[in-house]
């Protein structure tokens, strides 16, 4: 019988420093067969292990359309992420996943998409953004509103440039007041305000929001005001997890296990959950 707790062994093939304390690993399966059989969909997460320190949960940040590798972006915070950040290209990490549900991107086909992300919450959306961009003709307008505290805190700076350059993507970047640099050309202001200013048309549009709780709290009313129905607004949740498999018993909000029924939820689903965030 397979051990559900055994991770794949992966090589770190590339390390990118995104922002202070934020880093992206590109990972390749050490066993090629495992790599060939591996499949995931946008929205899913995994448990990454720094051997000797333990496992940490975060989303898969690369698109399922890029099949040769998996990428993850994490911020140094606890024991495991600190240990991960010590690693270099060539080192081994463990990967257990993919777990959780997915963004229903097929349902979104033929619709406009608005992605709203704040700070270190762009990585969960990056997977689905690239997924949709790689299938560009299936979707109508794609708008991305992304904000961070300061210019330095913006992640995926190269990709932001790439998106800016593309004429089939409307990228709006913003930084919190005081976080701008002299040569900053984006907006200055908090994400909810910028969303309101950008005022994407809610008709036939799906909004995908991801960010710190405070940002979500203020963005949802803005979207509502813009006419977005709760079931057209998606977000991802995170909670402390140990197994990722619905067994260890801690990631539930009320009856809902984030690891199994999530992490992707509509605003409607979330509004029905008890207040235990």
């Amino acid at each position: 019988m397979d051990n559900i707790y055994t991770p794949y062994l992966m090589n770190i093939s590339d390390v990118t420093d995104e922002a202070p304390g934020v880093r992206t690993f590109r990972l390749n399966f050490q066993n090629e067969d495992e790599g060939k059989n591996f499949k995931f969909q946008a929205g899913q997460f995994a448990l990454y292990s720094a051997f000797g320190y333990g496992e940490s949960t975060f989303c898969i940040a690369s698109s399922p359309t890029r099949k040769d590798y998996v990428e993850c972006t994490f911020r140094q915070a606890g024991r495991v992420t600190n240990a991960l950040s010590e690693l270099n290209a060539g080192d081994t990490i463990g990967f257990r996943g993919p777990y959780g549900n997915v963004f229903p991107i097929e349902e979104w086909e033929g619709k406009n998409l608005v992605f709203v992300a704040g700070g270190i919450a762009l990585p969960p959306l990056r997977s689905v953004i690239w997924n949709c961009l790689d299938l560009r003709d299936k979707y109508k307008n794609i708008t991305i509103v992304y904000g961070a505290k300061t210019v330095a805190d913006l992640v995926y700076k190269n990709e932001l440039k790439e998106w800016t350059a593309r004429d089939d993507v409307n990228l709006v970047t913003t930084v919190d007041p005081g976080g701008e640099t002299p040569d900053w050309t984006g907006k200055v202001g908090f994400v909810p305000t910028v969303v309101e200013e950008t005022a994407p048309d809610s008709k036939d549009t799906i909004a995908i929001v991801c960010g710190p709780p405070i940002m979500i709290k203020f963005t949802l009313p803005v979207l509502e005001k813009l006419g977005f129905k709760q079931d057209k607004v998606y977000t991802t949740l995170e909670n402390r997890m140990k197994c990722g498999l619905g067994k260890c018993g801690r990631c539930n909000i009320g009856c809902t296990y984030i690891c199994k029924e999530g992490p992707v939820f509509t605003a409607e689903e979330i509004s029905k959950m008890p207040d235990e965030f």
Partner: protein
Amino acid sequence: MEKTLKKEKLNSLITGLKDKGYKTIAPKKDNNLITLCEIQEADEIHFDHVQTNNSIKEYFLPKTEKILSYTIEKTKVSIEEPEGFAVKSVVFGSRPCDAASLPIMDKVFNWDCTDKFWIERREAITIVTIACDKCDSYCFCTSVCLAPDAKQGSDVLLTKISDDEYLVETETEKGEGLIKELETVFSEPPSGTPDRQVATVEKKFEIDKVKPWLDENFVHKIWAEFSTKCIGCGACTFVCPTCHCFDIVDECTMSKGDRVKNWDGCQFKMFTLHTSGHNPRSTQDQRWRQRIMHKFKYYVEKFDNILCVGCGRCSRVCPADMNISEMLEIISTDEGQPEPVSKE
């Protein structure tokens, strides 16, 4: 299959089990405790108790268990799968409530994917239960749809029919197989209806009223009122036969390590603490609510089972005398409207 077991045959039974390659786990007195633990001789077995202090859980979900080990050489890691954790054993003399916990927990350990550490042990271990001939005021199996002679989870159920004789009933093929393996130890069933000596466990609350109340009262002042005295330890969850929450940690030296699955409990404040310092269940009332909700609402919704077998251990060990059946009694008799209190 029905048989009887004479007490005088116990020796042969235990020796027989040993001969057939079984490890025997049975209640044994250890100072102030009655512990389910490995025994060698029938004499070691203790009978005259209500309940063992530890539950059967630890033979399927040990308090600490290696789920993999690895060696680190420079940049390379090699993983070694643990082996030999499922040892052919018989748990002899556990209580029906303990046995009943196992099929309940099978559900979560089989949810979508199978936890082999649980399942392989389940396969390797045969449960021979002895129905309760006595109980105490903490017992409430009858309130959670079980009974002192409940059969759920047992492979073989023994019921005392006289001072030196047990009625032996097999409940599963595995149980039947075991009895057959040791056929000579058992006698034929008595003719007529045997006098089953089974304790009478008082019914404390109407379980049917519990979930409807919980559905309505996620926010209620009773959570805080009842749990002010809770000290936030893990005693209740660790002695509970159905509490199965666990933690996964790495323990290692520089070059080799183990990934370990340890018991964890929802009453600890660390249980849900994010690395950011945020805690979705930051106060004891929230944690106490989680425990009750998990057992009597969430698990029911997910797996159609109450996550409680009424063994009463949590209430016996609670350092602050938090009594779960008392809580449920309050809930099941609360006729009033929900009393929402504002959240801080």
